[in-house]
């Protein structure tokens, strides 16, 4: 065996016969199994099993430190008559719908602006992603401070600088103010993701299409409607699905800024599940609230699936 310390022997024609392990590793079935084991193993143990366990817990009366027994639909029945729960469902849907519409409207606008020939484009692109990079909780604390009842900088500008209002706004003190403030913070955080993803989609559209449209005398609205929108649709639907999914299951922003208050008006289903499940100790009821989110998530996923298969059709089935 040539030792590697002797640098004078660079080439060793004698190849060691492959050992049992090496031969086993060249067995394709075994290799596939080995390669998938860490990823699939971790996902099965810490994702699939908990998902099933969560559904099971929703039908038990488990508390922290005490195993539960099967109680059928009791948790769901008590939720059915629970105003706080229905309030959370309402606010979750409201929060998702309003925030998504605003995020996509403004995000698409920002993407279109960045798609123009503006100077320092890559720098701008880099800094507008900041809201998305920074830990959500930490920027949420900054918003909390900006929404302060007494020292809000937004109120200061509106009242003392511009003189548009006479009194400071109590952003987080009344239900509807708090609801809109949280939507605003969510939109602020979500715009960069939408804009950068859509910008990538815009950049794949060939400029020659726009040139042809210009020669035909198309207006800018026509160019947007007939070229940009249809070619952007596939990527738009994927980004939309992810955005809806993550907004619907949002937790951090609400937990950091209002913790569901005032008077439970800003609870999302996720924060309510947390509050009942972990500090409240009623794991069964918390799990039932979390499980109630699943039908909505399945709808969003199906939407994503059909959007993707739509893309296949648009590209003549060439996309694998």
């Amino acid at each position, binding site marked *: 065996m040539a030792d590697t310390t002797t640098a004078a022997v660079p080439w060793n024609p004698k190849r060691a016969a*492959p050992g049992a392990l090496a031969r086993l*590793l060249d067995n*394709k*079935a075994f*290799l596939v199994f*080995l*390669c*998938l084991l860490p*990823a699939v193993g*971790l996902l099965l143990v*810490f994702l699939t*099993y*908990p*998902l099933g*366990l*969560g559904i099971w*817990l929703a039908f038990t009366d488990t508390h922290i430190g005490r195993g539960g027994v099967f109680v059928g639909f009791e948790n769901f029945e008590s939720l059915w008559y629970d105003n706080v729960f229905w309030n959370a469902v309402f606010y979750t849907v409201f929060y998702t719908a309003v925030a998504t519409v605003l995020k996509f409207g403004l995000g698409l*606008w920002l993407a279109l602006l960045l798609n*123009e*020939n*503006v100077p320092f484009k890559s720098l*701008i*692109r880099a800094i*507008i*992603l*900041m*809201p998305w*990079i*920074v*830990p959500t*909780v*930490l920027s949420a*604390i*900054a*918003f909390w*401070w*900006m929404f302060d009842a007494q020292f809000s900088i937004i109120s200061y500008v509106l009242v*003392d600088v511009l003189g548009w209002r006479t009194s400071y706004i109590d952003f987080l003190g009344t239900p509807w103010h708090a609801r809109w403030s949280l939507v605003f913070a969510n939109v*602020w955080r979500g715009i*960069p*993701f939408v804009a950068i993803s859509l*910008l*990538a989609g815009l950049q794949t559209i060939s*400029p020659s299409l726009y040139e042809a449209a210009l020669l035909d005398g198309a207006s800018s609205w026509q160019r947007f409607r007939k070229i940009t929108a249809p070619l952007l649709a596939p*990527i738009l639907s994927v*980004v939309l699905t992810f955005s809806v*999914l993550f907004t619907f*299951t949002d*937790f951090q922003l609400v937990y950091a800024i209002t913790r569901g208050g005032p008077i439970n008006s800003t609870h999302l289903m*996720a924060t309510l*599940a*947390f509050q009942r499940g*972990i500090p409240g100790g009623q*794991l069964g009821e*918390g799990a039932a609230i*979390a*499980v109630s*989110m699943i039908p909505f*998530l399945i709808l969003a*996923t199906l939407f994503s699936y059909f959007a993707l298969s739509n893309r296949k059709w648009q590209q003549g089935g060439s996309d694998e």
Partner: protein
Amino acid sequence: MSNSTEEGAILSWQSAPRRLMTVYLPLALFVFVLLFPFYWMTITTFKPNAELYDYKNFNPFWVVHPTLANINKLLFETAYPRWLMTTMLVAVCSTVLSIFASVLAAYAIQRLRFRGSNVVGLAIYIAYLVPPSILFIPLATMVFQLGLFDSPLALILTYPTFLIPFCTWLLIGYFKSIPYELEECALIDGASRLQILRRITLPLAVPGLISAGIFSFTLSWNEFIYALAFISSSEKKTVPVAILTELVQGDVYQWGSLMAGSLLGSLPVAIFYSFFVDYYVSSLTGAVKE
């Protein structure tokens, strides 16, 4: 270069003033709104309390007597350095674990091409759509039963549930772009499958690995709900959780030190991000396009 500016000139057919109103002004507004909270966070960090709550005598948009008292308090009177170390440890370990598992899985799915590889790929994609918000309650009971409660290991093992699906999809895309012929040549030369992965595929997929790595690191750094639910003792908390739960005490909020905590907690990811912006953007958009 001249070609692209010419194109822009034709495409926009807009006069300079009109372009100012339709492009630069809205863009400036966007940048202002998106960055203002960070400015506000920074300026508050350096304000002494006298200025912080006195808008009559001091312009709130500027700081007259900057002070390091808030940062000083955070670094030396709280367990902030400990939180930072814990967060770093958790983020690095879960990233390494996820990249390792994802590389092997993506290689198996994209390159070994066994029967059902598409199904496995789709299953991993669907796993990405399962949000932590519906998993944390059953995971909390599991973590408790496994005796991992209040241990960083609980986070290191659960973070891969959202990191692996993302990284695997990103890497499948990268592996797809590497010519198959290179591997065939190596096979003919007598390399084993694992040698091919180590010597041919991985070196060519380095940009993908970096993208996946920085993305995983940031996602782990920012993770909140698991860290909130599985960790209870103060010194083992991660930065986002600790700043929210340890610095907020009573009804009077110490906004100066809260903002200092937010700023210092954001800086590591922001600096990290600034080094890898291009990888970041490409992984974000690549994952969406896949």
